[in-house]
C-alpha cells in the first residue's frame, strides 16, 4: 500500500482531515486516492429492465461497497416513489390549470428524491433545493405546507425545525453552507447529527459549492453532499458547466470521498446514500455523491425544453424510468404483489386528491402579515407602514381572512 504523501515544511502541516481519510482508506486496504476517487463506473444495481445486476458488475469494490437495503426499506422506498411521481404529475397539472404559480417538477428524478429523505434518521437534517418537493414530502412534511410557496401564499409554508428540513429557496448552493453550519453546531455540542445537502449539476459551478465542500472537509463535519446531475441547468448542458471527469471527482480536491451512482436506480441510490450517511456519522467527515439522472419535464412551466434538447434524448431516458425499474425488481423478488401495489397506488391517489382540493380552495391570506416577521420586534417605521396598509385595506373593503 502506498504511504500517504506528507509535507514536513514548516507552515504546511498536514491537515488532520487527511489523516482521517488515511485511516478510512487503510481500513479498506486501499490508498487514500483509491478511497477518495469514485469507482471506475457509476454504482448500478438494477439494469433498465429492473433485473438485479451480478454483484461483480455493480461497479463496487474495496472501499466502495454498498450492501442492498432490506426488503422492507425497499418497499417503503417504492411507496414513496409512487407517491412522489403522483405528486409531481398532479402539481404539473395544477400549474397548467393556473392553480399554482410555478412548480419545478422532479419527474424522472424521484429515486434521488426518495433516497435523500429515506437515508436519514429523525434527528438528521435535510437541506433541499427548490426542485426537491418530493424529498421534503418524503421526509414527512405535510404536502400542503410544502406547496404554500408554489401557490404563492408565502415563501416557506413549513416549520424547518419541526422536521429538520431547511427552507426551500432559489439561490443555488447557498443552502450547502447552511448544512455545514448545522452540522458544525451539532458537532460542537457532541451530537452525531448528519446533514444531507442537495444541489444540481449546474449549481456545482457556484462559489458556495466550493466553499461548502471545503469548509465541511476542514471542519470535519458529517455532511453528505448529494448532487442530482440531471444533465441540464435550465438549458445549459453539463458539458458547458464542467470539464471534470465527473462531478464526483471534485471530492478528492477537498480531501473527501466521492462516488457516482445511477440516479434512476432506486436500489443503488438508497444503498450508496445509506452507506454515505453511515460513514459520515461514524467518521465525522463529509462525502460527495453524484447521482446521474434526468429531468423528464421542462425546468418549469415558463421553460421551453424543445429549444435545447431533442425528443429522442428524452425518449432514451424514459426507458430508464426509476419507478418501473423498481416495480419490476420488487415484483420479481416477491417483495411486491398486486394487492400491495394497488394499496400503494391508492394512497398516492389520496395525496394527489388532497392537493387538488387544497390548491383549488382560495387561501385565507392576511396582507398585514407581510410586516409581522421581518424583525423579532418591529421597527417604528414598519409599525407605521403596517398601519398604513391596514387603513388602505379598510377603505377598499374587507379582505378574506384579514385580522
Amino acid at each position, binding site marked *: 500500500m502506498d504511504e500517504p504523501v506528507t509535507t514536513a515544511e514548516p507552515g504546511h502541516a498536514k491537515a488532520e482531515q487527511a489523516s482521517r481519510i488515511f485511516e478510512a482508506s487503510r481500513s479498506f486496504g486501499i490508498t487514500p486516492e483509491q478511497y477518495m476517487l469514485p469507482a471506475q463506473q457509476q454504482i448500478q444495481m438494477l439494469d433498465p429492465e429492473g433485473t438485479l445486476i451480478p454483484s461483480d458488475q455493480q461497479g463496487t469494490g474495496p472501499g466502495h461497497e454498498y450492501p442492498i437495503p432490506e426488503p422492507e426499506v425497499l418497499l417503503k422506498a417504492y411507496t414513496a416513489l409512487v407517491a412522489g411521481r403522483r405528486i409531481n404529475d398532479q402539481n404539473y397539472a395544477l400549474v397548467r390549470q393556473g392553480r399554482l404559480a410555478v412548480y419545478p417538477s422532479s419527474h424522472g428524478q424521484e429515486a434521488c428524491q426518495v433516497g435523500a429523505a429515506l437515508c436519514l434518521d429523525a434527528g438528521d437534517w435535510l437541506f433541499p433545493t427548490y426542485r426537491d418537493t418530493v424529498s421534503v414530502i418524503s421526509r414527512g412534511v405535510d404536502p400542503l405546507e410544502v406547496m404554500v410557496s408554489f401557490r404563492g401564499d408565502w*415563501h416557506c409554508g413549513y416549520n424547518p*425545525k419541526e422536521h429538520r428540513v431547511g427552507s426551500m429557496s432559489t439561490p443555488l448552493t447557498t443552502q450547502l*453552507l*447552511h448544512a455545514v453550519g448545522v452540522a458544525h*453546531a451539532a458537532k460542537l455540542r457532541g451530537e452525531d447529527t448528519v446533514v444531507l445537502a442537495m444541489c444540481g449539476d449546474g449549481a456545482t459551478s457556484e462559489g*458556495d459549492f466550493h466553499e*461548502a465542500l471545503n469548509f465541511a472537509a476542514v471542519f470535519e463535519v458529517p455532511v453528505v453532499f448529494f448532487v442530482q446531475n440531471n444533465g441540464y441547468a435550465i438549458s445549459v448542458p453539463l458539458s458547458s458547466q464542467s470539464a471534470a471527469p465527473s462531478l464526483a471527482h471534485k471530492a478528492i480536491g477537498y480531501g473527501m470521498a466521492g462516488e457516482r451512482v445511477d440516479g434512476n436506480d432506486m436500489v443503488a441510490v438508497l444503498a450508496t446514500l445509506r452507506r454515505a450517511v453511515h460513514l459520515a456519522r461514524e467518521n465525522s467527515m463529509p462525502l460527495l455523491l453524484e447521482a446521474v439522472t434526468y429531468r423528464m419535464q421542462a425546468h418549469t412551466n415558463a421553460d421551453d425544453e424543445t429549444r435545447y434538447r431533442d425528443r429522442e434524448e428524452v425518449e432514451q431516458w424514459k426507458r430508464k424510468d426509476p419507478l418501473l425499474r423498481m416495480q419490476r425488481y420488487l415484483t420479481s423478488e416477491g417483495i411486491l404483489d398486486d394487492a400491495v401495489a394497488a394499496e400503494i397506488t391508492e394512497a398516492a391517489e389520496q395525496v394527489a386528491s388532497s392537493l387538488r382540493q387544497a390548491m383549488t380552495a382560495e387561501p385565507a391570506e392576511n396582507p398585514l402579515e407581510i410586516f409581522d416577521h*421581518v424583525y423579532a*420586534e418591529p421597527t417604528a417605521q414598519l409599525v407605521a407602514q403596517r398601519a398604513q396598509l391596514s387603513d388602505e385595506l379598510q377603505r377598499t373593503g374587507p379582505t378574506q381572512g384579514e385580522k
Partner: protein
Amino acid sequence: MSTTTATKTTTTFASALNTAMSDAMEADNSVVVFGEDVGTLGGVFRITDGLTKRFGTSRCFDTPLAESGIAGTAVGMAINGMRPIIEMQFDAFAYPALEQIFSHVAKMANRTRGRVRLPMVIRIPYGGGVGGVEHHCDSSEAYYAHTAGLKVFTPATVADAYLMLREAIDTEDPVVFFEPKKLYWSKAAEDLSTLREIYESRAEDSRKIGAQGQAAVVREGQDVSIISYGPSVETALKAAEAAAEDGISAEVLDMRSIVPFDEDALVRTVEKTGRAVVVAEAQGFVSVASEITARIQERCFHSLASPVLRVTGFDIPYPSPKLEEHHLPDVDRILDALDELQWED
C-alpha cells in the same frame, strides 16, 4: 452614555469590543466567534485577541479564507441553536458574503414566518482615515441598511462599543455591527467593570430590544443640529466645538443605530434647533445621510429655517491613502456647511 469620575481607568475601543465578546461567551455557551485570522492571531486588528486561548478552538476559531462560507456557515449554526459572531476582516472583504447576507441572513425569519430566527452578529471594521489601501476603507453601511431584515449598529464611543455589541449579541435578529476602524485605538475614561454593571442592570428584554435603537444627544445646543454616526461623530463634535467659538451653539446627535432608525430623536433635535447638517463618511448619493435628510424634510418641514445640508464623502471610489484627507468630511467642511444655513433670515 459616559460619565467621568476620578477613579475611572482608561479603556480602548478595541478592548471594549473584546471584553463584550468574552463576557458574552462566558455568559452563554452558544456564543461562538469565527472568521479569518480571529483565532491564534486575534484578528488583524486584535479585536478577538485571547478568545481562543481562553475559550478554546471550539468557541473561537479560524475558518478557511472565504467570506460567503463564513456567513453561510453562521446561518446554519444559528439555525441549529448557536449565536455566532463572525468577523469580516475589512469592509470591502465582506462583499463575497453579500448573497448569504442579503438572501438568507436578512430573509430567513420572514421566509419562515418567524419560525427560524438568526441571532447572529456580523462584525465589520469600516471607514477610512487610517491610511488604508483600496478595498480597506469603504463605508458600506447603506447596502445593509437598505436590506430589510438586518439591523445595523455602529458605535462611536468606547462605552457604546461594549454596550452595543452586547446588545447585538443578545438580539434575536441578525445585526451587522459596523466598527469605525479609526476609533479602534481611541481611549476613553471608561471602566469595563462599570460598563458590565450597566449592561447587567438592564432587564433582559431591554437588552434585546431596548437602547440599541436609540440615538443619543452627545452635545447639547440651540442653534443647529449636526447629525452623524460612527466615525463621523468625533468630527461633528470637533466642528461643534469650533462653531461655539463663532457663537453658534450646535447640538450633536449620534444616531448609533441605523436600523432601527430613531426618527423621534431626529425630530426632537431638529424641532428644537430649526437647522440641520448631516455628516457621514460614506458617499452622499443614495446614502444613509440621504435618508436622514429625507426624514427631516418629511417630519420637520415647518420647523426648518433653512434647507438641510449634507457633508459626506464625495461620490467616488475611496481614494488612495495620500488623497483620503480631501475626501473625508472634516471640521472645515462642516463649518462651511453651517455658514450656509441662512442665518440672516
